[in-house]
């Protein structure tokens, strides 16, 4: 018995990459939406307060975003693999203090930064090992390490604190200096951001992060070294959190046992606003960085507009909801448009 002897149905020509561009454009559009919101916000603020976009104003805006951008970049890598690292705030705090203690003892700034990054790498590795080897939910493990690192930090630091006075002048100047309105820290963050994005798009292991976030079981069957990749993502995230700690020290010149407490929620917000999906597999670091920029800018815009700080928190929350809702509505619209388009093409 044969199922069919008819010739295979005539096949439509393979569509050209036209719809790729569309898909790409859609993703870019989501990021564009954030850029737009950001621009509107800044323009309105500038109209209300002409000092906002002064050299100092721009510099402040960029400086405020830098640290969050860095941590959000690392976090998105982890989130893309369908995991999460809640311990970034604690890691940031402890590495900032470690770098500070070292500098206080007369250390070299570069070594101090390296030290902070290494400490971050260490905690990243710890998280990564626990999550990938134990194959346990990242949320629980990193909530656990959040507490552990914070606790160890408090025990170690006690009531000590590092202030700008304890730090070499060059280090502190680096934290607030730059070329006209562009701070050194922002440049550093931008370089890291661009290279991370390039890596994710153009390197095999970068794509594998997306694959394994998209479907871990399929990733295993496709021969992707799942554990190694998860470890990589966590290590990178930890490294950036460590680096962010060092930069925090340079920027604020003020570190104690509470530094970075509650930072994880801000980071997660930035990542989510930036369109990195919590179920893994999609989103870009640019999006996360824009999310970070948006969040920190809100915090600068409101005071600059003279909005009482009583209102800031509520407005922050509403903006956050608005951002994700708008993003979602745009995505839905585009998806249905795409679907109809596809249907028409057969």
């Amino acid at each position: 018995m044969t199922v069919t002897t008819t010739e295979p149905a005539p096949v439509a020509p393979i569509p050209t990459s036209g719809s790729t561009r569309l898909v790409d454009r859609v993703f870019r559009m989501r990021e564009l939406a954030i850029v737009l919101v950001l621009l509107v916000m800044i323009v309105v603020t500038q109209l209300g307060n002409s000092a906002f976009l002064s050299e100092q104003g721009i510099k402040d805006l960029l400086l405020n975003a830098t640290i969050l951008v860095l941590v959000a970049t690392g976090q998105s890598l982890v989130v893309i693999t369908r995991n999460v690292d809640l311990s970034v705030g604690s890691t940031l705090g402890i590495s900032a203090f470690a770098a500070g203690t070292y500098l206080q003892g007369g250390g070299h700034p570069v070594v101090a930064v390296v030290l902070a990054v290494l400490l971050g790498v260490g905690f990243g590795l710890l998280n990564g090992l626990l999550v990938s080897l134990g194959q346990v939910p990242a949320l629980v493990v990193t909530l656990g390490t959040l507490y552990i690192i914070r606790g160890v930090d408090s025990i170690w630091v006690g009531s000590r604190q590092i202030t700008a006075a304890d730090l070499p002048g060059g280090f502190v100047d680096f934290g607030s200096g730059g070329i006209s309105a562009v701070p050194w820290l922002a440049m550093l963050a931008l370089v890291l951001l661009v290279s991370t994005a390039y890596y994710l798009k153009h390197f095999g292991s970068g794509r594998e992060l997306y694959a394994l976030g998209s479907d871990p079981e399929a990733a295993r069957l496709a021969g992707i070294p799942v554990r190694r990749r998860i470890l990589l993502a966590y290590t990178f995230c930890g490294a950036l959190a460590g680096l962010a700690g060092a930069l925090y020290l340079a920027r604020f010149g003020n570190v104690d046992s509470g530094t970075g407490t509650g930072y994880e929620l801000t980071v997660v917000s930035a990542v989510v606003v930036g369109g990195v999906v919590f179920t893994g597999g999609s989103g870009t670091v640019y999006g996360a960085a824009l999310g970070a920029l948006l969040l920190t800018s809100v915090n600068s815009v409101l005071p600059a507009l003279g909005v009482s700080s009583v209102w800031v928190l509520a407005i922050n929350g509403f903006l956050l909801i608005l951002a994700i809702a708008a993003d979602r509505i745009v995505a839905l619209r585009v998806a249905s448009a795409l679907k109809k388009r596809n249907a028409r093409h057969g």
Partner: protein
Amino acid sequence: MADSALARAVRWDTVVGALLIVVLLLSFGFVDGFGNALNLSFLIGNTLPIALIALPMTLLVVSGEIDLSVASTAGLSGAVMGALWNQGLPIEAIIPICLLLGVVCGLVNGLLVTRLGLPSLAVTIGTLAAYRGIAQIVLGSDAVTDFPSPYLDFAAGRIGDTFVPYALLPFLALLAVAVLALHATPFGRSLFATGANEEAARFAGVRVKRQKLILFTVTGLMASLTGVFWALHYASARFDNATGLELSVVAAVLLGGIDFDGGRGTLGGAIAGVFLLGALQNVMSLGDVSAQSQIVVTGVLLVVSVLGPRVGRRISVARAGRRAASAPASTP
């Protein structure tokens, strides 16, 4: 079968329950000041807010969602309670208004999640800030403390000289309702299905959206109830009441073996987790363990709580495998 008996023995919620009993017994025996009625009533009273929110949170997490705005909802209803009290409204009218407010807060979360299809984590991080912000606008820097003493006594007092705070009784009733709802009703069963595979649940006729909307609303209600309780228990309504409570709830629920991917867990485990953390903190404080070390202990417990059962399961599977391999061939 032997392997499943073993697997059941390492089920984490039973382990947490056992651990709770062990901790209680040891503390009765060896920790000065633990076993007396006053301390126990303190322990229970201070743990109740977490336990109250853990009830709906467990259901929510089982169905695959999460609500991080609970502490802010509690804060908001406390703030509104204080503001209305300052306006001169009778407390008997204020409390229902606050509860209604909680329903609205939960409804907003639920509508955003079900109508717009937004991830609940993101939505409730947003409302976490928004609700707290509104609370701040409503009450500003005020701290309202002069609530009528019968209410304060109910929220903070205990029955005679026993260890039972008055507030424990309504909690036990709510616990019973929640346990029944989750483990003995069709509604609860469909929650598990939704959490494990939402699409399959939808195909089986489960009204997933309605179900989630109900859950978010109930969570809002319970959060505001907690807010009211909090304000009375501590005799203080401020906009920042219960700040950070969401993390404690999440930690306790996670410790109780509730899987945040949805579809797994028991209320017994969650509540055991809540009281285990509460009891440990109490014991450690009595033993002069510093707050910093307590944080470390909480963290280690969390990590162990997820690593423990996995390791246990792996061992039991390996054992069962060895036994099967050595057994004579037989068709099941």
